């Protein structure tokens, strides 16, 4: 097996091209793959179909790519807090598909798990159900299909050369699902550790789901809405 370890973002993201579908982990700005996003911004590839819960927020994350008009389609659950996306959506520059967040997660999981479709009550009786097959179980449900991608870029706190990953606190969110669902999953880590340093019981993503991994640098780890206890 050739090594999965790459020197940096430039080396790991060598084969991206115009028109790819691209999953990006993170909830708001929490757990986003900062280095890979900056490398894609530098490359300037266009017509990206971005699949991410927020497509960036507050001008950061994938919003860097929105500002450069690199994203032409977006699949996400939430636009609020992302003025770049809202503006380009209303101007018709980005084709936005809104998906209920639980359905979004499960469609990505389904793509990674080999599930060809599933029925869920979420969205029944709303605009989301339009054009979808309906079926009544104990409650009325709609058919949802898997959501895969060409590439996934994700960030983990720790990872080893096989691609075993460990996430910190709520930074995990969509990343393990996207790791399973993309044809090529590229991981950046705060710490690249030796095999065995992440105890087998504590592996959040087994390495088989990861194709490339590199040590990230210069993390901003921005806090979007800081709230503190009164002291």
């Amino acid at each position: 097996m050739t090594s999965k370890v790459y020197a940096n973002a430039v080396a790991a993201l060598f084969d991206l091209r115009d028109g790819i579908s691209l999953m990006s982990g993170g909830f708001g700005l929490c757990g986003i793959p900062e280095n890979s996003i900056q490398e894609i911004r530098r490359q300037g590839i266009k017509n990206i179909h971005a699949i991410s819960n927020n497509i960036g927020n507050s001008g950061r994350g994938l919003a860097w790519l929105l500002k450069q008009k690199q994203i032409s389609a977006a699949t996400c659950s939430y636009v609020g807090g992302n003025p770049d996306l809202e503006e380009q959506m209303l101007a018709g520059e980005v084709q936005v598909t809104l998906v209920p967040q639980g359905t979004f997660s499960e469609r990505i999981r389904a793509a990674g798990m080999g599930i060809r479709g599933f029925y869920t009550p979420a969205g029944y009786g709303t605009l989301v159900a339009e054009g979808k097959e309906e079926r009544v179980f104990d409650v009325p449900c709609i058919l949802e299909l898997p959501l895969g991608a060409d590439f996934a870029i994700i960030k983990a706190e720790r990872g080893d050369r096989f691609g075993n990953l460990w996430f910190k606190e709520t930074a995990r969110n969509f990343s393990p699902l996207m790791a399973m669902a993309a044809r090529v999953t590229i991981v950046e880590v705060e710490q690249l550790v030796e095999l065995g340093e992440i105890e087998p019981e504590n592996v959040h993503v087994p390495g088989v789901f990861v194709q490339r991994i590199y040590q990230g640098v210069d993390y901003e780890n921005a806090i979007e809405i800081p709230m503190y206890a009164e002291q």
Partner: protein
Amino acid sequence: MSDNLPLWSKTEMVDEVVAMLDHGASLNLGIGIPTLIAERIPPDKEIWIHSENGVLGVSGRPTRETVSPTLINAGKETISVRKGASYFDSATSFGMIRGGHIDVCVLGGMQVDAEGSLANWMIPGKKVTGMGGAMDLVHGAKMIIVMLTHFSKDGDAKLLHRCTLPLTGKRVVHKVVTDCGIFTPMGDSFRIEKLAPGITYDQLGLPLKMWTRSLFQDGSEPWENTTD
């Protein structure tokens, strides 16, 4: 029209919801007013707060020393967690919801109707925030509570016979807590469970026939009128 009414404050609304929670309950909190609930739960009441970005056991706010950029709630605000908390991915998080493992979910809303339908994710031609997790949440938790101000800034009632905005979920809401009182959607009308002190049902902004008054604070006879 709500300017001179003795409305409940946000804190009073929150305390009404807290009073409905059983010791040991699991609870999902939506963005907006509901997030205030985490700070108003008394220490002797054990509540397991779930946030759909992947945490069960949300506690109060962190200090400047303990704050972590990777520890946030679904509103992207920094949080802390209690002893016994757990973290998980988004599919597991929504499995907890959709699978019926969470007892209570409290969401904000733009409109809610007598049928129990909720609208809270877009105003056609004006504003699209997206549904986030709301469409999944309303179909999973055992009890769905909607918190919203009773009137819009223009004075329109947000409790309607039928929602006019695109729905988040159809026939899903169990209780509505506004700054005027607590209401139960009954199909063609709302049952009044409780009114803020000084509020009367003719101030609720809809024809009398919209309200089924089942509980008079003065103990007088209940009446019903459920026709549209």
